[in-house]
């Protein structure tokens, strides 16, 4: 039986981790649930953002969080371009399948270019406060992890509001569901879909930066992330940001706690066990509705 202290420490670590997962999965929820695009390259963009944050810190010596000023608009623009230039040209009938492949291709290119630019060496940001921590009821909370968690919370709240409360959110969903009908009610479907994609990539910029604060990065790291993130959005119910957030917290916590008895490797399987369990019991996910693309 693990000690109470360890249990509590693991819960803290799990929640912090879950928060980060939620942010990383948010973009996927957007593309996937709203636009029916399977964006394999999302985690590659996360790693790209992490590299940019690392690079900013390494070369310019400034705080990696400052890189957000550049990466967020940059990624937003890249998302718009990606959507307008590539995804919008795919046939709607085969969009899902083809989007898998085209985004896979993008992931490969990002990985290759990162390797070319920064080599395959593992990198880690060296921060003055990298090992700083404070005590909370007997558990230690690392400052960097808390910052990442905070970034996640803020971005998710912003995203949720945007989708739920603005015309843009509605227009985006209408565009995806029936493009012609959306055009006929006066929606600029091209622009809307582009912005939607840009938004997803913007979350990748934030997520990647948060990720870079407390982890090692290397070009092929994105393969490691894509599985858990996909599992999260399925468990959360495709397309539901609150669902993804809840699933992320839950699975992060479960992973962290399961590591106590099972060890790190087996604990990772919790994502896939949850994925299969979800599909078997409730294919629509545990937090979203069946047809629901509710925000």
């Amino acid at each position: 039986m693990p000690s109470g202290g360890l249990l509590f420490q693991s819960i803290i670590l799990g929640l912090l981790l879950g928060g980060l997962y939620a942010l990383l999965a948010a973009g996927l929820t957007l593309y996937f649930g709203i636009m029916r695009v399977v964006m394999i390259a999302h985690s590659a963009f996360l790693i790209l953002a992490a590299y940019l944050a690392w690079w900013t810190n390494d070369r310019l010596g400034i705080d990696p969080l400052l890189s957000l000023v550049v990466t967020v608009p940059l990624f937003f623009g890249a998302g718009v371009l990606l959507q307008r230039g590539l995804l919008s040209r795919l046939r709607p009938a085969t969009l899902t399948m083809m989007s898998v492949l085209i985004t896979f291709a993008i992931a490969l290119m990002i990985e290759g270019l990162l390797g070319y630019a920064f080599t395959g060496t593992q990198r880690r940001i060296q921060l003055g406060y990298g090992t700083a921590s404070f005590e909370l009821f007997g558990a230690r909370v690392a400052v960097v992890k808390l910052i990442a968690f905070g970034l996640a919370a803020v971005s998710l709240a912003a995203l949720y509001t945007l989708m739920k409360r603005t015309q843009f959110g509605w227009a985006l969903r209408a565009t995806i569901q029936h493009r012609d009908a959306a055009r006929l009610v006066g929606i600029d479907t091209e622009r809307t879909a582009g912005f939607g994609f840009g938004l997803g990539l913007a979350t990748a910029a934030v997520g990647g930066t948060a990720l870079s604060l407390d982890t090692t990065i290397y070009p092929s790291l994105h393969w490691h992330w894509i599985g858990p993130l996909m599992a999260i959005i399925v468990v959360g119910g495709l397309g539901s940001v609150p669902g993804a957030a809840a699933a992320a917290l839950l699975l992060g916590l479960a992973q962290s706690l399961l590591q106590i008895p099972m060890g790190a490797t087996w604990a990772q399987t919790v994502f896939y066990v949850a994925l299969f369990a979800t599909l078997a019991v409730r294919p629509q996910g545990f937090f979203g509705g069946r047809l629901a693309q509710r925000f």
Partner: protein
Amino acid sequence: GGDDGGGGGSDDPIVVGISLPLTGDFSEPGKGVQEGYEAWAKITNDKGGLLGGRKIELKILDDQSNADRVVADYEQLIGSDQVDLVVGPFSTRLVVPSARVAQEYGMLFVEPAGAAAEVFNQGFKNLFYAAPAVADDHYNHLAEYLLALPAGEKPETVAYAAMDDPFAQGTAYGLKKKLEAGGVKTVVDEVYPPNTTDFGSIAAKIAAAKPDMVVGGSQYQDGVNLIVALQQLNYQPKLAAFSTAPTNPEFAKAIGNKTEGILSPTGYSQDAPYESNKEFVEKFTAQFGRAPEEDQANGYTTGQVVAAAVEAAGCAEQGDCQQKLIDWLHSNTVDTVVGPLKWDATGKPQGAHMIQQWVGDDIKIVLPADAKEADLVYPKPAW
């Protein structure tokens, strides 16, 4: 250069084929080994080459740390490029498959970095590990030292965390076996896959068990991450030992210089008194602008071993010559920058590693006693 054309000698270069993990998981040490090979080729060529004037030409391919790739690379080097000699890549995981290719083409295979036990129980007859000791023996001196401590001082509990990698586990479990036999209790024994980046939970488990000593079976980055995670939890062991990572030049910076007292085994020391080592350190520093570390030395040693065999056998090409080289190495000792090396029938070297410790902002040899540059600090200061 001897250009007299007699006895099969010519001035054709001797082409040495190598595949290295220049990208991917092992790229950092892989590039270290590459420098070692390059230094060997340059130093040898500057002295006039081998076999009376044949220059050494390296043909290096990148296997991306991928076992499928490494096989294809050696396949290409031997089958298509018709290189004269091949030497090994970095990491046990790549050495095993590539050694088999060499074996099946009847080639000699001297390698710089296949230290784990499985390299030597595959039945390879052509393989030689060009370093003093295999993974399990890396901590031998440390184990002896700890077990010799008086009862009150001896660490009582130890936590182990090892990457799921034959080499990394080999080092940690080599030590574990000896300490357990000596009555030291294991309180945590964690294994993590090579791609792990989040060490929070493992660190939490270790910190909660409050062991006297922590041992990390690490390659490079995982060691750094584990140390940072332990420091985030403010865990202060009496002793901390990690394989490979602490000897890397980037290490101190990577963990924010909180290196106090960290131990690491090493097969190489820049100050080692062996004859060729002085020349190596000097010329390497001239070539690359900094002193060589363990990976560079391993590459260089590999070259030295091959060169000795080639000179002794008087040939370097595919075919019957390879068996002559193999036979010669099985029955002789070679002097290298890591000392004299000789091998058993499986290609296993017969020495032991030294133990280094971070003292202040430098890493110094502390064990064995006859080679030490400083005294081992125990318990170690807080990090």
